[in-house]
């Protein structure tokens, strides 16, 4: 398991991660969901020992990554966001090198090389140089190199970025398989659908802070039965907030001159009332969209912005 407590990473005045805490359990996938620049990769960097935390502690299977770095890292498998492979080596040579980096050798290494190349569908291309591979094949090989030593804790930093749909499905299956085998998986992504479908538990991170965490059900519960209503047009913020201030079923999430976002209980049945209230607030409505409760709507509710912004 991974235990992160009050993790903080600063670069001068810039706070990349500001007091993050979470626990990822064995045999489960813990998702770290957040937009680009939220602090996901920095958190992964601190857990993998690549970065030294400014404050806080990170433990991997009980070993502090700063004080017992070698022990902690020995049980870690890291699949970095960028494809970290030797393009001038073959797939087999890459897997062999990274296996040796984790102390494997001899027949065990050979057996593991065959296993991981087979499960990633690259066994028949084992002798081909990586620079002849497609992006999806490189992603799969990147994953193979991360699991060749059978890690008990697996860190996956946005492993599906830029991957074709077929390879993506295959990769996600592989990740799920790892968790089923008892591996503790920490999975970062900015794809909401991926997080929803893959993760047993989730933490939503923004600006270096975790703004919500729990199981998918727990997070959705934070939204209650509320839908997210996005209205385009022209608005006066004060009038809008005044109109909805006494309505417990409506909460103004964000509002600017051209767009308002409202959190509304059972929005579909309240649309006529909503439109009437907007008219009373001297708003001009050009478009209206209703979204069911989701991680994205929760993210918008919590941060006032969309996940992909």
């Amino acid at each position, binding site marked *: 398991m991974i235990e992160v407590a009050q993790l903080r990473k600063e670069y001068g005045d810039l706070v990349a991660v500001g007091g993050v805490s979470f626990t990822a359990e064995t045999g489960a996938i813990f998702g770290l969901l957040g937009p680009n620049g939220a602090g996901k990769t920095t958190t992964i*960097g601190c857990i*993998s*020992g*690549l*970065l030294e935390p400014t404050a806080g502690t990170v433990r991997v299977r009980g070993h502090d990554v700063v004080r017992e*770095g*070698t*022990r902690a*890292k*020995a049980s*870690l498998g*890291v699949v*970095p966001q*960028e*494809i*970290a*492979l*030797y*393009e*001038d*080596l073959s797939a087999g*040579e890459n897997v*062999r*090198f*990274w296996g*040796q*980096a*984790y*102390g494997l*050798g001899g027949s065990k290494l050979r057996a593991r090389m065959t296993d991981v190349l087979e499960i990633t569908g690259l066994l028949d291309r084992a002798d081909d*140089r990586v620079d002849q591979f497609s992006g999806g094949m490189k992603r799969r090989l990147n994953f193979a*190199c991360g699991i060749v030593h059978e890690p008990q804790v697996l860190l996956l930093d946005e492993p599906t970025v830029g991957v074709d749909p077929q390879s993506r499905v295959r990769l996600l299956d592989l990740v799920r398989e790892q968790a089923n085998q008892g591996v503790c998986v920490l999975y970062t992504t900015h794809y909401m659908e991926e997080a929803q479908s893959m993760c047993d538990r989730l933490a939503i991170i923004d600006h270096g802070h975790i703004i919500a965490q729990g199981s998918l059900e727990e997070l959705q519960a934070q939204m209650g039965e509320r839908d997210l209503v996005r209205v385009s047009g022209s608005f006066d913020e004060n009038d809008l907030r005044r109109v909805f201030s006494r309505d417990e079923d409506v909460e103004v999430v964000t509002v600017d001159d051209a767009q308002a976002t409202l959190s509304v209980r059972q929005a579909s049945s309240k649309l006529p009332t909503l439109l009437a209230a907007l008219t009373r607030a001297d708003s001009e409505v050009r478009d209206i969209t209703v979204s069911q409760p989701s991680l994205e709507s929760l993210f918008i509710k919590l941060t006032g912005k969309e996940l992909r912004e």
Partner: protein
Amino acid sequence: MRFLLATVVKDLIRRRRDPIALLLWTGIPLAIGGLIFLAFGGDDAGPSGRLLVADQDHTVLSALLTGAYQQGPLAEIIEVEVVELEEGHERIDAGEASGLLIIPEGFSAAVLESEPFEISLVRNPAQRIVPGIIEESLSLVVESTFYLQRLFGEPLDVIVGTQPDDANVVPDSTVASVSVAFDQIVDRTRPYLFPPVIELETTSPGGDEEGFDFARLFFPSMLFMALLFMAQGLSEDIWRERSQGTLRRVIATPQRVATFLVGKLLAGAMLMLVVIGLGLIAGRWVFGIELHGLPMALVWTTFAGMMLLAMMVLVQLFASSERTGNILTGAAIFPLAMLGGSFFPFEAMPDWLASVGRYTPNGWALTKLNQVFAGELPALDLLQSIAAVALVIVVFVWLSMRRIRGRFAHS
């Protein structure tokens, strides 16, 4: 240890798949060395040329004059060819010879009678060295002829003036009188000639050293030029490790960054070992350069190359980008090569510059290599030097490791 070996093997495989780079690193110094070698005397053959002689006198003395060019060292430089005057002029105009010596009729008579006479030498204006040699040696021959006439004029006159009898035989009485005359002259001059009263002693700096061997002088410099180029080229790989993410991935493994770095240095050192080994074999057995202590030279050069590589890697790590790194290392190797005797041998530099250059890392190592080649570096001294180099490598690796962990891998 396993990871160290894995890193070495990994880098060697990668290098094997990029032979062009290896060829460039070794080819450039070879090309530069070859050009300098050719430009400054790599050709062992001395100057040579052809002297055309238009002998219109056809006497014993005129034959003696041209014969002077067909004996001793001059014969190795100058090939004499007797031609008719007209042909001689045509061939000189066509640039086919270095000079045309014209001996007009009456030469012998004039010499014997001590009368002024003129012989002509036409030089090829397109050539400088050989016509100069011909002219200088001709003036010596003419001078010698004058003294010969002074000493042996009388008997020579007898020889030239004697008419053979019907059987084309010089009378015995004439031969006997000429012999006696020669003998008396030699007896009179013996105190001055045997032994000569003036002795000429020729010495050259360096006592009993062998003659100037340009190849031997430039060969070690060429080796170090190759090492510098290789060190620069190999050091760039640290940027490749960073840009392709493998450096960060290594840091995330339980292995030490230092092991990874040393593995890379060892791989580089092994390539240098092979290149320098081939260079030494070629130098000694293909080009016949006199080199001593080849195994020691190989070990020393490899260690020195590893030190240069570690230094270049450190320079790369302090650069803000790969481009800057290449500019910085490029800016470092050219002054090092120039100053450290890798471009021009120390022997070809002004003394003050050479003494400064010997303090550069490659200059210091090159000086040691020259001592090894000359058989002047005891094994103990070599071991001490290797220990010093190893210490410098350790310091460079430590600094590099700190730099990688501190900023390089993350920025």
